[in-house]
């Protein structure tokens, strides 16, 4: 893998981060009305509004405000929550791990479910197994995750009582409890993701198995196992990894919904609460975090793609 390629991807990631800071910063100033006024609500006196404006630096020119904000963010100072008596960084720290764990479980679950089914589906095309598999994919894609989460909750927690209804336990406190609280949210979050991975992998594998180089491998007498898992899979996984990367955004937005449904104290819940209570520093901080995670995940996917497919890195 070329150093040049790595540098290019890194540069691209920095560019995305820069662009998103501009957008996140401007969001506060684009929404109609005065942020200070909005924060204080209808009860705020004009004096109080003016004081807050000065405190927040809202009277300075925009570019100056932006530079100050970015400069602080770079040193880890994301400001203080207006509502809660904590710094934004503190609030994030507690919750980022939770969200990352939830997304990771959903991702692992999705891959573990999707890969075997898509291989079965692609190698036994147009059999009953293939049709059932594709029907499941269709259902998985069509089902909104919050609805699916609710159904899971009703069945496994309320009716059967096998799992806790909602809430969260840190893995440091009790690993078993942690997992029993995370199972349903991870399934609800991962199902749509699994469906996307399955559809992509099945189709790319079907396509790859018809390629000339698969016939060459067979003409060399290679065992069918080697042909499928080495010669076909390595090629079929290229679109899969790309989709996994692109859909990390889907996973993050899904996490926001699922965290609110299952009352999991993650970034998504923090963000929604902050938006509802107009806690702007927290809104900015959470958005910045999500963007950073997304950009970093995409960098990882790009590097993974380059490792799988040598053509990517040497274009």
């Amino acid at each position, binding site marked *: 893998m070329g150093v040049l390629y790595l540098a290019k991807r890194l540069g691209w990631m920095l560019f995305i981060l820069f662009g998103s800071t501009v957008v996140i910063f401007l969001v506060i100033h684009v929404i109609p009305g005065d942020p200070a006024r909005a924060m204080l609500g209808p009860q705020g006196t004009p004096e109080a509004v003016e004081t807050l404006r000065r405190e927040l630096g809202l009277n300075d020119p925009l570019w100056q405000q932006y530079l100050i904000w970015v400069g602080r963010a770079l040193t880890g100072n994301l400001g203080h929550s207006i509502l809660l008596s904590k710094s934004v960084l503190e609030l994030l720290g507690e919750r980022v791990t939770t969200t990352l764990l939830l997304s990771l479980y959903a991702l692992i679950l999705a891959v573990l479910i999707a890969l075997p089914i898509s291989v079965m589906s692609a190698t036994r095309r147009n059999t009953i197994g293939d049709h059932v598999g594709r029907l499941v994919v269709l259902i998985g894609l069509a089902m909104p995750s919050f609805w699916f989460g609710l159904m899971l909750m009703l069945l496994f927690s309320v009716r059967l009582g096998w799992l806790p209804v909602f809430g969260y336990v840190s893995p440091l406190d009790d690993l078993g409890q942690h997992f029993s609280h995370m199972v349903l949210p991870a399934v609800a979050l991962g199902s749509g993701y699994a469906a996307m991975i399955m559809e992509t992998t099945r189709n790319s594998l079907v396509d790859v198995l018809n390629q000339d*180089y698969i*016939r060459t491998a067979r003409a*060399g*007498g*290679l065992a069918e196992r080697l042909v499928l898992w080495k010669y076909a899979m390595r*090629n079929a996984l290229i679109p899969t990894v790309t989709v996994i990367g692109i859909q990390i955004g889907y996973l993050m937005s899904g996490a926001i919904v699922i965290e609110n449904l299952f009352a999991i104290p993650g970034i998504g819940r923090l963000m929604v609460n902050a938006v509802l209570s107009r806690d702007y520093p927290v809104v900015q901080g959470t958005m910045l975090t999500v963007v950073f995670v997304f950009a970093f995940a995409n960098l990882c996917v790009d590097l993974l793609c380059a490792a799988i497919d*040598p053509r990517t890195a040497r274009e």
Partner: protein
Amino acid sequence: MRLIPISAATDPLLEVRDLQVRIPTRRGDLLAVDGVDLTVGAGEIVGVVGESGSGKTLTAYAIMGLLSAPAVISRGVIRFRGQDLQALAAEERGRMRGSAMSMVFQEPLTALNPVFPVGTQIRDVIRRHTNLSDRSIRGRILELLDHVGIAGPERVAAAYPFELSGGMRQRILIAMAIACGPSLVIADEPTTALDTTIQAQILELLRRLVRDDGISLLLISHDFGIVADLCQRVYVMYAGQVVEHATAGQLFDRPRHPYTSALLGCMPAARDGDAPLDTIEGTVPTVIDPKALCRFADRCGYAQARCTEQSPPRQTFGVVQDALCFRAAELTLPGLVTPSLTDGVLP
């Protein structure tokens, strides 16, 4: 050019009898290959010519055991070194593919796996068929690459297909095909995707492998020039059937089937220098419900009423030549007139 070893006809390395390949479609079963007889003797280069859709590639896949569903062999026998290949278990057949018989494909870029170095792809074939240590395999790969005329084998073995030229890639495929010392190599349009200069080099390489390594070659091509250059005997295929079989010399001097003659007329160097090239009107028919008629009749300039009423007989001429035509004996068809004799270049 060597003369035909007549003994080859009596004790062939490969013998195909009455081969039929059927592809089920919505409109009925398509007979992509229908009653093909074909032999390849030890050390022989045999050509199969015909347009796209004539069934030549499917014949090759059937021999290699590479037909993919839904195409199936519905009739016929394929014997290799006297052994009935269809009687073999899949595992035995797999062990034979890539070692005793192997294949070189038309499109050298798509025929190599894009995400593995070419050395790895050759290594996997050798590993499948031998018990050599990794070090000996490594040595064998470099030796093979050198043998097929690749300079700097270490560098090339580590390269990915997209880093190599078309000619290099075809040499890699040939190296892979001969890696485990096959007695038969089937080359399916091995030079079609290459530049003319590279074509000549690859053909020369194939010729050398037959001469020096005792390999027999079944060469599939649509190009009579290549076939004339390389092959001792030629099968001309049309709509799934062999319509003529002859030595290369007989075929060009005195073709017996109007289709062969028409194909020769399509060659750029075929007839008078100034005369426009001939073309054969129409396309190769797909045969779904075989009727008793000559499949070439509707495109044939010599067709008579009986040609669309009965199946033509196979008429034999001398030791080797035969043609599937009513009029094979009576017609004197134009063959290949070399341009040097007609366009006055020579004094």
